[in-house]
């Protein structure tokens, strides 16, 4: 029920966006994320974009994961 998947916003028309992931297109409401822009990734939950994925933070987390992994090699 709390499932949400990252999808890319392809186009926006009013409160509605066309989104895409892995070639699958889906309409989504952006009533909860009115600041979204074409090209952004959003978390899609039951037909609504509930949040915008923060790409910079996503990269930071990956960097942190790699750092921790490299620490485990030292031991």
């Amino acid at each position: 029920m709390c499932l949400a998947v990252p999808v890319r916003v392809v186009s926006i028309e009013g409160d509605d966006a066309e989104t895409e992931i892995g070639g699958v297109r889906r309409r989504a409401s952006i009533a909860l994320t009115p600041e979204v822009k074409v090209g952004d990734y959003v978390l899609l939950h039951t037909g609504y974009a509930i949040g915008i994925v923060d790409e910079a933070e996503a990269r930071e987390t990956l960097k942190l994961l790699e750092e921790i992994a490299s620490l485990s090699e030292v031991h």
Partner: protein
Amino acid sequence: MKFIDEYQNSELAGKLAQHIATHTTGQIRLMEFCGGHTHAIMRYGIRQLVPPTVEMRSGPGCPVCVTATGDIDRAIALARLPGVIITTFGDIVRVPGSHSSLQQAKAEGGDIRIVYSARDALEIARANPGKSVIFIGIGFETTAPTIAAAIIKAKKEGIENFYVLSLLKLTPPAIRALLELGEVKLDGIIGPGHVCVITGSRPYEFISRDYGIGCVISGFEPLDILLSIDKLVEQVESGKPKVEIAYRRGVKPEGNEKALELIEKVFERDSAIWRGIGNVPQSGLKVKGEYRHFDADRAFPVTPHPAKEHKGCRCGDILRGVALPLECPLFGKVCTPEKPVGPCMVSSEGPCAAYYQHGAGYE
């Protein structure tokens, strides 16, 4: 970057598990609040990957599972009213009530339609002006703003035959209720990532402040979960519990302000009954004020017979983390996904369904 595959790298996962193993000095017990986390943990074998010193317990974070039998009975009673179309998310249809299920009510002629979104339910109402379309609103804070948005849209566009039976629940009061019960000693909580996309991390700060244990808000890919476990282990080892966000690409401390504003606009807090926990004050959302017209509770008051629980089903204990699915005498014998006795075996987020689907080889 697709924000999925990058967080599923098995080589990194192995190294993270090794990091966790080298940093745990004693036995620790963590609870993953979300059923979505339980499924990911089972699916990716995270229990086997982390050292045996890290014990994982599933929690009540499955909206379908915690819906009380009496509320299922109410939905079934609504489905039997003339001129009504029931719309709902798929999982709930198969959950047994006291004597029947929505699926059975459908077989008996009830007009029950599974929808993917509250907005689909609204479109069904628009297309059927002669019928009353009731949406069974089940979910946590993740789903609440989507239902609020649908109600606001119904009012704006004058779709007056759309109603919501709000069984929406708020997670912080349930976590507090669980910690107050104190049945299971926990050293940390893996916090609900998608709930926190909406609420932010602040409503969870009481966990470390009042109960002295950490809470790390986690994404749902295997590396997200391992990172959260690693952070909780670090907190336990350093003796500094706190509320942290490990799912930073999705969660901000303040949450989604627009979504929170819509929840405030349409709903007010009320007590709610959680399966396994009981009545939790201020943990439910009911339709308020100028939106009351859309409240199915007000428009169609039904009083089903007192709820009857199924004998032997340990869903309640499992949702509180007191028992593991395998400790239920019905698990896999009387209760299977094909013929579920309790909602924990029905829902795609249910802990029993997770153990049944992915649990082979466990223990």
